[in-house]
């Protein structure tokens, strides 16, 4: 999260001294695309900035919505994130991907904003460790005792004739899935949006949210299980 911390120290004197004519020690870790993009951004190419915004703006709004009360605030936080990105381009050290750095700035701001709005329920839910006792899958679906304890009493049925593409061809299915995702508590929604919707690597998600890999999979799995239940219900109701 180094880049994010740097972006928030906000000393402009420091930022100028960081403008290196050659690659910094860590920038060789960047992908070629990221490296090219950051070079063009630092040169002030507007087209590069436009493509950066086009690529990430939607994802940033979707992320922000998990932290703050309403859409308008999410848009403000995202706009503010882009301002910080512009002002901090020279502080980006390439220790993470450009996307991780930008998302990190957004998460920091969105959490901050959520806290300032005194939305204690959301914020404390985000900060607290999930109640580890609670399992993702309803324990009632398993045998409780005897030789078969811990094995399926009510096993899931295969969705053999289904594919995600087929399911999403129905508007009602899309709406049902969106509702299931929107209903997730922020802790679960955030990991699902980052990992499954935006395709961010697990290690990057952990770094952005400052959580352990174990915690990531606990949350991610709970989120997926709730969406799985929504699919199961949808398929059952339709049958």
């Amino acid at each position: 999260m180094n880049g994010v911390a740097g972006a928030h120290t906000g000393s402009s004197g420091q930022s100028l001294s960081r403008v290196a004519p050659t690659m910094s020690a860590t920038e060789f870790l960047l992908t070629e695309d990221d490296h090219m993009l950051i070079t063009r951004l630092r040169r002030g190419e507007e087209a590069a900035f436009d493509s950066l915004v086009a690529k990430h703006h939607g994802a940033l709004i979707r992320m922000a919505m998990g932290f703050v009360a309403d859409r308008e605030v999410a848009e403000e936080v995202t706009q503010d994130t882009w301002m910080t990105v512009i002002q901090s381009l020279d502080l980006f050290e390439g220790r993470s991907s450009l996307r991780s750095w930008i998302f990190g700035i957004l998460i920091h701001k969105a959490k901050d904003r959520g806290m300032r709005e005194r939305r204690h329920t959301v914020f404390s839910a985000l900060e607290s460790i999930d109640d580890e006792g609670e399992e993702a899958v309803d324990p009632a679906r398993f045998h409780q005792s005897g030789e078969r304890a811990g094995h399926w009493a009510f096993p899931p049925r295969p969705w053999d004739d289904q594919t995600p593409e087929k399911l999403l061809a129905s508007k009602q299915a899309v709406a049902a899935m969106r509702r299931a995702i929107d209903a997730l508590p922020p802790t679960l929604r955030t990991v699902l949006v980052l990992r499954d919707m935006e395709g961010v690597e697990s290690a990057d998600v952990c770094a952005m949210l400052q959580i352990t890999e174990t915690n990531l999979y606990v949350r991610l799995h709970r989120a997926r299980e709730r969406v799985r239940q929504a699919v199961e219900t949808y398929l059952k109701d339709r049958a």
Partner: protein
Amino acid sequence: MTQSGEEAASEITCREVAEWTSAYLDACAGDGRNARIVLHLAVCAGCEAYVKHIAFVRRLVGLLPKAPEALADPDGLRGAFVARHRKQ
């Protein structure tokens, strides 16, 4: 070491397999647990269906159409970007 499929499968319960499914799909369940899950899946239709469900959900979420989002103040941002460059 000879071990029947049933015996191998009982080294991990369905409940455990279900809890570790997301980590398993990313090969992050740990070597020992990963091996037990593989053996279990070979003989347990319920868990096989469950793992497939979660893989389905993972793909489904990625494929959900995303609403296009426009900047609230594109000119302001562009202006700031241009101004930043002029300052240097």
